[in-house]
Every structure is written in structure tokens, then in C-alpha cells.
């Protein structure tokens, strides 16, 4: 078995988020889990957003004031703990999530990816699955 030699005191976690915000609890669960991972002194290697999970990354998210801002929460977590938030490019393009480079390339009039997120290939999901000690998936 791989990685069995590693210390259990400090582990690298990968988190996969497969659902968008506000419909399903998955993104909330993933966030609370990631916070707890960090609280215990472990590392979150990457959070990968796939399927409708890519919808977590739009900076145009504007929830009512008395509700949590799920996108902002991820952005803050990424900047506070230097976490890589990777958004699958193919899933994102299907659902209208673009960064400035993708917007230019596809002749869109704006980008909408939030700070802290980056567009990435699906290979980054495999990469984190291989490199992390633990992969935990949240979805529908």
C-alpha cells in the first residue's frame, strides 16, 4: 500500500467537490471538513471542483446579507491557508465559468472566476489523488 510509511501526525488531504453551492449541502460539508483538517494541523493540498462543483467559483455570487457567501468563504480559506482551488476547465466551460484567458480565447465579454480559484485540467484531479495521503469526496 502506498504512503503507509507516512506519519499520521501531518497528512496531505485532497478534497473533491462535485456539487454547486446553495442547492446541495456538499460544498458546505467540504468547507467545514477542510477547516477541521487545517485546525488539526494537516495540509489541504488542493480542493478540486468538478461537475456542478465548478459553480462554487463564480465571483458574481451575491447571496442575501443574512446568508453565507460560499464562494467568498472558499476564497478566504485559500488566501488564509495558501490552498490551491482548482476548477476543471471542461466542466467549467460547459457551465459558463471562465477566467480572463479563457474569456479572451472564447471571445466572451467578461470573465467570472473568483479570486483564489484557478482553471485547471482534469489531470489535476488525478494528480492530487496520487499525491495526497487522503482524498475525500463531497457531492450529491
Amino acid at each position: 500500500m502506498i504512503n503507509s510509511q507516512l506519519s499520521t501526525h501531518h497528512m496531505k488531504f485532497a478534497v473533491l467537490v462535485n456539487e454547486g453551492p446553495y442547492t446541495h449541502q456538499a460544498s458546505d460539508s467540504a468547507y467545514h471538513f477542510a477547516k477541521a483538517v487545517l485546525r488539526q494541523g494537516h495540509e489541504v493540498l488542493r480542493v478540486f471542483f468538478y461537475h456542478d462543483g465548478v459553480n462554487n467559483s463564480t465571483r458574481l455570487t451575491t447571496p442575501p446579507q443574512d446568508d453565507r457567501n460560499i464562494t467568498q468563504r472558499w476564497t478566504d480559506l485559500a488566501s488564509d491557508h495558501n490552498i490551491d482551488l482548482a476548477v476543471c476547465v471542461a466542466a467549467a466551460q460547459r457551465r459558463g465559468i471562465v477566467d480572463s484567458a479563457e474569456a479572451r480565447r472564447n471571445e466572451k465579454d467578461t470573465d467570472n472566476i473568483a479570486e483564489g480559484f484557478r482553471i485547471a485540467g482534469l489531470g489535476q484531479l488525478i494528480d492530487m489523488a496520487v499525491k495526497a495521503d487522503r482524498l475525500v469526496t463531497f457531492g450529491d
Partner: protein
Amino acid sequence: MSKKRIVCLNRRAPHGTNYPQEGFEVALIGAAFDQDVAIAFVDDGVFQLKSEQNPRNLGLKNFTRSFGALADYEICEVYVEIESLTERGLVEDDLMTLIWEDEDDGDIEKPLLRFVGQDEMSQIISEADVVLNF
């Protein structure tokens, strides 16, 4: 990159949701990244293997035709749970015919789908380093 045993576990029917199609892309990418990838079909996932699917009149892409390319990606372990088939009134003949050429065995064409019972499926899941569910 080191190598892990990745099992893509499919438990959803095709077309009703897009999870199977995007899940299939993960399996292909995993193989392209030289990982040890196996695909397992359990519960409604077995419906993905039904032959003669035609969602094109609905404007949907028939991604299940791409299962024919699995062997080209060197994904040669595809497991189907017999109990899930039986529960859904399906038999082997209802499913698409997929083959791969075994390089280690004189390029003999072999059936790609391996039909396994619940205990073997349980073992396939237990033995994975990473299980990805779609």
C-alpha cells in the same frame, strides 16, 4: 508521478444526469496519467452498458459509445456486478460487446466486461487506493 490503483465506481444511470459522462472522462484521464485504473458498474450504473442506446434525438451526446475506446486507453479491467444486473432484469446479452487485445497473451481478443458477484465487487473496492464515485 507514482502509481495508484484507482477504481471508478459508477452507480448512476446514463443520460438522466451528466455524472456518468464526466466520470468516464476522469477514468480516461487517470489512464492517460499512467495510473492503474479499473472501472466498476454497480446499481443503476449497469444501465450505462446497455447496447443500442440512442439519446441523439434528444440532442444528447451518446458518450457510452466511447466505452469502445477503453482498451485504447489501456483500461482493460471493467467489472459489472451480476446482482445489480439481475435486480434490473438485465442479462449479459443486453449489454454492449466490448473487447480488448491482451498483449501478454498473443494479442488475443478478450471480452472487456468481467461479470463478478457481490463478494468480488466488495473486494475490488477494498483493494483500491482511491475510489472515485460517479
